[in-house]
Every structure is written in structure tokens, then in C-alpha cells.
């Protein structure tokens, strides 16, 4: 064995291991900028919030550094707070379910249209996204009261005899939430429908399935994963929304968003507010992890 050959072999060996190392690091290097932004803008504040929720509270101060589970305890033991959590979840579930049904029908309709109508559907669905939540709330203020659009429509159609106001009712808050989450739901579901081969509908019909059977046997199972995602997105969105339920709902409709705001700005109890916020974050994260795991199983046949 001559030594130049050995040296050469060692050199090649070193070069290959260097390349291997770079190959391992490359994905991380590519992700670094996005990772940095995510950590700085979302990670750090969340950590700070988590820490804040364990601080102690004394009346005139916002918080006193310390470590206590008191606020989490209060969340669960105080019926007033616990009811708010339940109420928020219930309202969000109802809104998400309703959004899902409307969004699904709307997306199905848009999907079945020829291309030229489809654009109209897309534009229609995108409209609410172009307007700020506050403007939309002002719109509802002209829609729900006694002298609002809805009242006039109901009276003139003869459905009710006297003018009615639906302003500041839980129903108004519910409608507002549905309206807010509908576009997201629609676009998610439309993208799911777009992944389906239209020939499957033809094939199903060709094999003797009536339209309803085709829906039950083919469309529904194939859109199931998308339904789960759309539902969780709508639910998360509804959970975190503060302005719409506060502005349209009754004064007694204390959602989590409202309570966080109240604790933070009126009561100046930062640990309590952040404890609330942490519950919200954890609830949302749980829903997302759950849908992810459901998705992974449901889509396995596409692999």
C-alpha cells in the first residue's frame, strides 16, 4: 500500500463527510429565516404570556412577580369565568357547524359551475375579506335593529306583523361570527373539491347511483378530511374573535375574548388576562393537533 493512495482516500473520505453534514444542515439553513420570524413574533410573546399568567396580582399594580396557580384555579372555580369559557366554546361550535354547512353547499355549488360562473363565486366569497371587521360590524348595525334592513324585510314580506330588533342578541353575535368565518371555510372546502376528479361523479352516476347516493358514497367521504380542517379553522377563528360578538351580542354575552379584554384593560389584572389567553391558545392548539392527526389517517388512501 503506497501512502499517496492512503492520503487520497482520506481526502475523499473527509470531503464526503463534509458534504453529508451540509446536506443535513441545508433544510435547517433554508428554514432559518422563517423559523426566526416565527420564534420572535409568535414564540417569545407566547412564552412571555405563559410566564405572566403565573405572576401574582395585588390591587393597584398590574402584577407582582411571583409564581402561583391561583389564576388558573380561579378560571375553573369561579362559575362566572367557567361559564364564559363554556359559552365561548358553545357559541364557536355552533358558528363553526353552521359555517361548515353553508360553506360546504356554497363550495359544492361553485365547484359544479362551469369556469365562467366560478369566478363570480370566488369574487363573492372574497368580498368579506376585503372589508375590515369593524366596517362589517357597522353593516350589521344597519341590518339588525328595529329600523334595520332585516326588520323591514320581515315586515314587508308579511312574516312578522311588527318591527323587531335582533340587535344585541346572541343570534346576532352568532350570525356575525358565521359571516366572519365563512370565506375561510369556503376557500378551504373549494380547494378540497378541486382535488376531486369530476369524472368520479360521472362514473358514480354511470354505475346507477342517484345524485344523493353519489353525494353520500363519493363526494362526502372524499371531502371528509377537508371538512375536518374547515371546521377546526372556523372554530378557531370564532373562538378568538373579540369584536364581533361583543359588538353584536347582548351585554351578558361574556365570551373569552371579552373577558380577556376586561381583565387586561378595565381590571388591570394582567396575570388573570394572560391565564385566560393561555387557555384559549391551548384550546386552539389542541383542536389543530387533533385535526392534523385525523387528517393523516383519513388521507392515507391518497398516498
Amino acid at each position, binding site marked *: 500500500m503506497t501512502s499517496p493512495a492512503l492520503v487520497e482516500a482520506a481526502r475523499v473520505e473527509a470531503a464526503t463527510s463534509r458534504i453529508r453534514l451540509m446536506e443535513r444542515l441545508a433544510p435547517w439553513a433554508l428554514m432559518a429565516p422563517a423559523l426566526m420570524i416565527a420564534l420572535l413574533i409568535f414564540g417569545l410573546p407566547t412564552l412571555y404570556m405563559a410566564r405572566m399568567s403565573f405572576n401574582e396580582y395585588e390591587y393597584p399594580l398590574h402584577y407582582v412577580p411571583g409564581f402561583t396557580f391561583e389564576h388558573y384555579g380561579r378560571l375553573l372555580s369561579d362559575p362566572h369565568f367557567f361559564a364564559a369559557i363554556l359559552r365561548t366554546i358553545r357559541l364557536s361550535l355552533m358558528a363553526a357547524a353552521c359555517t361548515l354547512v353553508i360553506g360546504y353547499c356554497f363550495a359544492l355549488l361553485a365547484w359544479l359551475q362551469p369556469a365562467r360562473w366560478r369566478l363570480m363565486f370566488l369574487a363573492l366569497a372574497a368580498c368579506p375579506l376585503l372589508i375590515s371587521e369593524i366596517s362589517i360590524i357597522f353593516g350589521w348595525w344597519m341590518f339588525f335593529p328595529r329600523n334595520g334592513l332585516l326588520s323591514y324585510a320581515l315586515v314587508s314580506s308579511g312574516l312578522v306583523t311588527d318591527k323587531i330588533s335582533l340587535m344585541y342578541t346572541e343570534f346576532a353575535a352568532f350570525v356575525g361570527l358565521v359571516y366572519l368565518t365563512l370565506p375561510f371555510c369556503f376557500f378551504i372546502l373549494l380547494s378540497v373539491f378541486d382535488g376531486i376528479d369530476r369524472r368520479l361523479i360521472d362514473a358514480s352516476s*354511470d*354505475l346507477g347511483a342517484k345524485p344523493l347516493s353519489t353525494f353520500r*358514497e363519493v363526494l362526502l367521504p372524499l371531502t371528509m378530511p377537508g371538512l375536518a380542517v374547515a371546521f377546526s379553522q372556523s372554530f378557531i377563528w370564532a373562538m378568538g374573535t373579540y369584536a364581533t360578538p361583543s359588538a353584536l351580542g347582548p351585554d351578558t354575552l361574556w365570551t373569552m375574548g371579552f373577558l380577556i379584554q376586561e381583565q387586561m384593560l378595565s381590571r388591570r389584572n394582567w396575570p388573570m388576562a394572560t391565564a385566560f389567553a393561555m387557555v384559549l391558545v391551548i384550546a386552539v392548539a389542541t383542536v389543530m393537533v387533533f385535526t392534523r392527526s385525523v387528517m393523516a389517517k383519513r388521507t392515507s388512501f391518497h398516498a
Partner: protein
Amino acid sequence: MAANPALELDRICRRYGPVVAVDNVSLAVSQGEFLTLLGPSGSGKTSTLRLVGGFEKLDRGQVRVDGVRVDHLPPYQRDTATIFQSGALFPHKSVAENIAYGLRMRAMSRADIGERLRQVLDVVRLAGYEDRYPSQLSGGQKQRVALARSLAVRPAILLFDEPLSALDLSLRLQLRGEIKRLHDELGFSAIYVTHDQGEAMAMSDRVAVMNKGRVEQVDSPEAIYYQPASEFIYTFIGESCCLPVRIEATAVRDETGAAVALELGHGPGEGAWRLYVRPAQFKVGTAASQCENRLKARVAFIEFLGNVYRYHLTAGSIELFCDHLGKAGLKVGDEALVGWNKPDMTVFA
């Protein structure tokens, strides 16, 4: 009593806006017949098939399956079954569930479905694949499942919508043989849409050539090849060379008016003609001088195609190519004599 044809199309029409996709098409497929709709893309063959399947509405005309009018019925009430180009298998259902789908929709009993399932899986040679999902199958297997799914419901007529065009060549040849074998064994009636003339020729009892929404000729594959009814069919089926010439009393000229050295022993009279000859019918070199029709041309380039050498020649503005077994001893730039006999020439005005 003679049985009704499996399928009759009676002057059916379908427009899409200003485009007439299917223009007054009349066809009949007798029981057990394998009829191919052959045409270039956009000729209306797939539209015709979709009208039969019920996926599109007719503007005019009638569709009768086994003598019964069906043109007003939705697909799920028609006794037809389509094999789609993509296969269109339900991705969330196993092979068995896919095949059983049509039977379940017909409310067949569980035992009968199991029996029928075994039969068709044997027929398409996929026994043992019941529990696979479409994503676990190859392209050829998918199409065989699609075929099995359609065969299972025993329709009055099977509609094939270019089922092999997405597959690679060797698989295409294998599956087309298999479909042919199944047709011989089972004797089903079928319409087969394709733009592949090889498929059409090899599989069909009769071929209907479509062009611009119309059926130009319905005949046996041999008749389509040897007695084409129109210039379109002649040029569409097989390869051919076109020699556009103007024959005058004293000379033969090409399209630019330049004289070409064409001697027509037997040919049309004076006037402008397009002479068509298949590339294999041309003779080159010494054999050419024995032919009734002869043309002096120059070798432009030579291609080796495996089974033959293809000589591309020019004479004035006329371009032609002839296939020659082995080398003809010609080089690029050489002047060559090309000859052909009258039976091998087809003339269109």
C-alpha cells in the same frame, strides 16, 4: 324476431355555443358488435360517447339502447357503462368495493354481489387484488379494474372513452389484446373511442371515422384502409404522401408553376389534382423504371426507422418520402427516379 341493435343513434346533434360538436350523427351497433369511433381530437367522438352515456344533453335526435329511447334519461337510468380515460376509480374504495358499487346501486343481494365480483375479477385476471386501493395499483391494473367495474353491471353496451391513451406503448398493446380477447369471450357490445388508428384497426368489427362532428365513413377496418370514402380518411389513416400537381397538355407543374419531371402512364386528365401514394408503395431506383408513373426527384435527407430506410425527396415544391427495405444506394443530393403503379395511387381533386 331479429333482436334490436344494442345501440342506435338517430341523427343526434350537440352544439357548444357556436361549435357543432356532434353534427347529425347516425349509427347502429348490433348485438355483440365492437364499433370504434376514430378521429382526431376535436372530431366529436368523445362528445358522441358522452351523449350516449347521458353525461351531456342532446340538442336533437334520438338515442336508443336495446330499442328503448334513453335520450331523456339521466346516466343512472341508462343501461350503459363507461370506461373512462382516467379510469375514474373511487380512490377511497377498495378494488372489491369499486367493482361492487354498481351492483349495490342496483340493490343486488350480498351473495350475488360476491359471486359476480369473483367472476369479473377472474375475467380481468385480478383475483387476489380485492382489498387493494386504487393508489396501490399500476396504470394497467387500474384500467382493468375500471373494465371489471363496468362489466360487472352487465350493461347493454360498454362505452370505452380512450381507456388506453394514458398508458405507455407496451402496456397499451397488451391491454388492447386483452380487451379484444374479452370481447371474443364474452361477446359484449361496445363503442370504443380512440384517436389511435392502430387500436381501431386491430380491435374493431367496424370503424366509424369522425371528422368535425360528422361520421365520414362506417366500414370494416379493411375497407376503411383500402377504400377510404374521402380524402380526409385517406390522409388520417396510415401515412401517405401528397403530390399536388397541375396537369397540362404539354407539362406537369407543381403548385408554384414550375415544371416537374413527372410521367403519368395512367393518371387523371388535365387539371389540378392531389395524388396520394403510401410511402411503402413507392419504388426507388431500377424498380422504378418498370412502374407506370415515374417522377425524377432529389434526395433531401434519409432516416433510418429500424425496419426501413425512409428517403425524403423533393421535386420542385413537391415533397415526398418513400420507405425502402435496406439501403437503396442513394446519397443526399442524388437525383433518383421514384415510381408507383396506378392501383397504389389515389387521386382527389
